[in-house]
């Protein structure tokens, strides 16, 4: 009882304000997305916006309850809640109801609950508790491994549902580990992998390998300040490469040749005595070699491990549609240029038909969602079409327009202005959470704050990125916005637990 007035006074009202604003805006957009002129009442319980009003009301109850419970309690139940939510996730694999091919939901009558949303809270609490333990140092490799197990357990179970989107969210804990001392190289490594992944799919691996080798030579030569070396390197790499790639047209031979050259260079490098700081240069050569290898692996995994729908989601993102369009147009041009009785006509026509079919499949399958989403957002223009004036979202061109694709309604009805306001609000919220986390005396609270910010960041990035064609189409909700009780309550609890912890920021929780 002693802490009650304290709690109220220490509450971070900015965060609460942004939270309420986001929830309210989300509700308005759900109303607009599913608006039905026959049922204009905001509280029609037969409509999703009416139900969302109830979820919001209950969400406020969840928020209040979260604020009423003492911080010490959260610290104490951290592992317990982790085990509980993980069991819930495990249980859904057995008792869950299958919706759209995934067992992600518990169904009690017409009411459904998604345990993976709550698993994020349990995991966040457990990670916070683990990392804040006195003798744990995030820098150490064993800590990283243990944390990986902690995160990987629920994430792996969720992947079995299968729900790749929610699984991916667990990667957000890398920010928390980084803040607590994980080497920054992990972040850079992740970034490098992502860049190489995209490059490997976009361009021919042989050409990329060649560019990498030439770059290495350039850097190497500048370290030596030996221009003879540079000239020799380019001659050794450039001329045979040209012959292999352009004349013989054997890219695989080129790769082999380049790898041989690199290995030779490393061996040669070891024998040079006068070079100082040899290790650094060796590492550079190794990175080059590893990159080439990685790109090959990517190509292999991409073509042989991923399922077709997963592949298309990624190729789509990399401009597969316009590539096919170009090919179709080119073939059309070729066909019109061929004389009526040319023997190649049949072949070209077959090719054209095949490409057209692929394009059609792409546009009507996964491509449909992305295309409609982009059209809806793009058609909003600078200032938007106005509340309830959107046609693309309201008339079902955009799928899942009140849940995963709710941002389309924002984009269409509120335009560039409204979209940036929403992104701005998320940025303010996440930044504020980081600042608040840093002011905690208790490591547990600080780490938990980072967890909240990172989870919100991942959700926002993937969700909005998906609607504007910057991330693959992965179905996860936009926090506070998307229709649905489970995600709203989970995010509310996640956030308000931290707000409660923040009211006790002067204390140290043990």
């Amino acid at each position, binding site marked *: 009882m002693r802490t009650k007035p304290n709690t109220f006074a220490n509450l971070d009202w900015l965060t609460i304000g942004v939270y309420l604003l986001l929830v309210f805006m989300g509700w308005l957009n759900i109303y607009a997305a599913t608006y039905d002129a026959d049922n204009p009442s905001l509280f029609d319980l037969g409509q999703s916006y009416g139900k969302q009003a109830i979820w919001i009301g209950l969400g406020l109850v969840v928020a209040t309850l979260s604020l009423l419970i003492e911080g010490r309690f959260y610290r104490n139940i951290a592992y317990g809640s982790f085990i509980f939510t993980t069991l819930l996730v495990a249980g859904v694999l057995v008792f869950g109801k299958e919706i759209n091919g995934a067992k992600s939901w518990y169904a009690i009558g017409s009411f459904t609950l998604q345990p993976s949303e709550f698993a994020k809270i349990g995991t966040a609490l457990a990670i916070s508790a683990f990392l804040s333990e006195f003798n744990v140092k995030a820098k150490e490799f064993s800590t990283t491994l243990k944390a990986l197990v902690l995160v990987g357990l629920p994430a792996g179970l969720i992947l079995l549902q299968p729900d790749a989107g929610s699984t991916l969210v667990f990667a957000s804990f890398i920010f928390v580990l980084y803040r607590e001392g994980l080497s920054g190289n992990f972040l850079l490594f992740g970034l490098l992998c992502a860049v190489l992944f995209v490059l490997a799919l976009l361009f021919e691996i042989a050409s990329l390998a060649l560019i990498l080798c030439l770059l290495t030579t350039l850097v190497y030569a500048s370290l030596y300040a030996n221009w003879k070396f540079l000239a020799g390197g380019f001659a050794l790499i450039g001329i045979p490469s040209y012959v292999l790639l352009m004349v013989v047209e054997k890219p695989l031979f080129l790769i082999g040749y380049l790898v041989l050259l690199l290995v030779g260079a490393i061996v040669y490098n070891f024998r040079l005595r006068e070079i100082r700081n040899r290790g650094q240069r060796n590492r550079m050569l190794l990175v080059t070699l590893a990159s080439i290898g990685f790109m090959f692996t990517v190509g292999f995994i991409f073509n042989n491990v991923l399922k077709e729908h997963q592949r298309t989601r990624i190729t789509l993102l990399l401009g597969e549609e316009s590539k096919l369009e170009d090919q179709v147009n080119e073939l059309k041009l070729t066909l019109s240029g061929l004389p009526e009785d040319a023997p190649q006509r049949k072949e070209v026509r077959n090719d054209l038909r095949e490409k057209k079919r692929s394009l059609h499949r792409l546009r009507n399958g996964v491509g449909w969602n992305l295309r409609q989403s982009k059209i809806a957002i*793009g058609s909003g223009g600078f200032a938007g079409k106005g509340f309830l004036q959107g046609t693309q979202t*309201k008339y079902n061109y955009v799928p899942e327009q009140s849940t995963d694709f709710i941002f389309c309604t924002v984009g269409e009805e509120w335009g560039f202005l409204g979209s940036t306001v929403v992104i701005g609000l998320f940025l303010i919220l996440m930044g504020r959470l980081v600042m608040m986390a840093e002011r905690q005396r208790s490591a547990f609270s600080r780490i938990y704050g980072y967890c909240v910010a990172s989870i919100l960041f991942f959700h926002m990035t993937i969700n909005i990125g998906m609607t504007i064609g910057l991330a693959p189409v992965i179905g996860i909700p936009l926090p506070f916005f998307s229709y649905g009780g489970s995600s709203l309550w989970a995010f509310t609890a996640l956030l308000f637990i931290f707000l409660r912890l923040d009211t006790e920021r002067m204390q140290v929780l043990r």
Partner: protein
Amino acid sequence: MSRSLEDRKFVVITIFGVVALAFAARLFYLQVVDDSLKSSAENQSIRYVTQYPVRGNVYDRNGALLVYNEAAYDLMVVPRQVKAMDTLAFCELVGITLEDFRVKFTKAKDYAWRKASAFEKQIPANSWAPISEKLHNYPGFYGQQRTLRRYPDPIAAHVLGYISEVNQRDIERDPNRYYESGDYIGKSGLERTYEAELRGIRGVKALMVDVHNIVQGSYQDGARDTLAISGKDLMSTLDAQLQAYGELLMHNKKGSIVAIEPSTGEVLSMVSSPNFDPNLLVGRDRGKHYKTLAANDSLDPLYNRATYAIYPPGSIFKLVQALIAMEDDIITPNTGFACNKALVGCHNHPHPSSVGKAVQFSCNPYFYNVFKRLINRNEASSTFKDSEIGLRRWKKQVESFGLGVKLPLDIPGKWGNIPGPGLYDKFYGKGSWAFSTIYSLSIGQGEIIVNPVQMANLAAILANRGHYYPPHLVKQIGEDGTKRTAFTSRQTTVVGSEHFETVINGMQAVVDAPGGTARRARIKGIDVCGKTGTAENPHGEDHSVFIAFAPRENPQIAIAVYVENAGFGGTWAAPIASLMIEQYLTDSIADPAKEARILEANLLDVQVEEEGDAH
């Protein structure tokens, strides 16, 4: 806690910021820079439905309806939006065969993949109701309301004309580029002449459709919509009753009737026989009917004889010769010439002692002499030169009667020819022809050619004693509109009105005198003035021609009647003209036997089953 770890918050916040910034930049590109997405959105969710204006009605001079509109529907298709469907059920619904479906659908696809085109045209309203009920099962198909032209009485087909869908040439020819594929345009008759007034102006309605192509309401509350502006109604000069009666009289005859109100030039009736029911050239079966009508080449019902058939005027032209000669003081009303059959053939008749008698007897040698005096006035020493001067002057004089010139009639026609020196120079060489070469012109034969409208107009000129208003078919454009100004300008002939009574005396005698050539044109109680003629026909029996006006004082109607291959003008053309006059002036026929004789007559040289004939 090391200081450096705390600084990592900046890295984290920077990552958050960079992502947010990247999103904002991407949104800026999608929403502000890239316009293609906006048009994509409109293309898929907004359907522009053309609002077709109601084409104007056409009424007769008394306000009776001649042409009106009936609702019909075009079944439109957007091939891109068509989903897999029960094609068989669809065909049954629309009333076509599977084969039809394939042909039509391929045609629509070839026209445009994303644009709407008519799948099945002009489905009448009663057949449309069951289709529209089930149409939501077939995405990509929708109805477009159109109107069909309907004719309450199957009359005046040639005058009214017909409309049909525009072709590529029509679209390209219009200077305003108004027409789009699927529009209708007047192809002949008044529909064509008054196209701009009748058609109105198209409007467009923007409708929002959902992903299932179901209309969800008006786009932007109709801010982008434009209303269709209805076409103007026309009041025709035709008298529907008289027109119908004329068509009845001309049944089983080839030829034409043109009746004009002399005081205004308004055409009261324009009959071309054989004719057809205008309702046949409307709707789904229009093409089929058109083919049948066009294939009937012995009767050629689509051919408007009243404006396109050109013949030599024959004896009727003698009226003009007499008038010009009197005007030029070549003769006086009492000039007589002997009927010298050595000059030109003639029939037996009393001595033509005056102009009136000459007209009454239609004496050929008399007018040979008159024409010789008109042409050769000793104005040049050479007879060739003299003839040339004379013919040039004569041509001008004749043309003031509306002959050999194009009259501004509001439907197209051929306007004949009055030969001048140029024609004969070309034919015989300059200076190689004289009066002796061209003398057949004196009795309206030879190179002189006129059409029935010009003949009726000549009757009107006689009725008016020397002037005319150009014959026309539309009295009034729009509710309170006026007629075209060309029709209100009074045209005068070169002949003074004082000379007309002499000729008219002769014309009345043609009808009333015991030896008159058109005794069958008499009407009890009405002074009919007329002149018979026979248009020589090198291909067969001569054409029977008669012009008349009545009553003699304050004439109400002037008329020209042509009956092809019917021989002498008095036998068939004169009684038909008199029946028309009587019907128009008294609304009844006093002599049913006279009427029955005409109705029962079948003067067609070939008997052909006429599918296109409504009577």
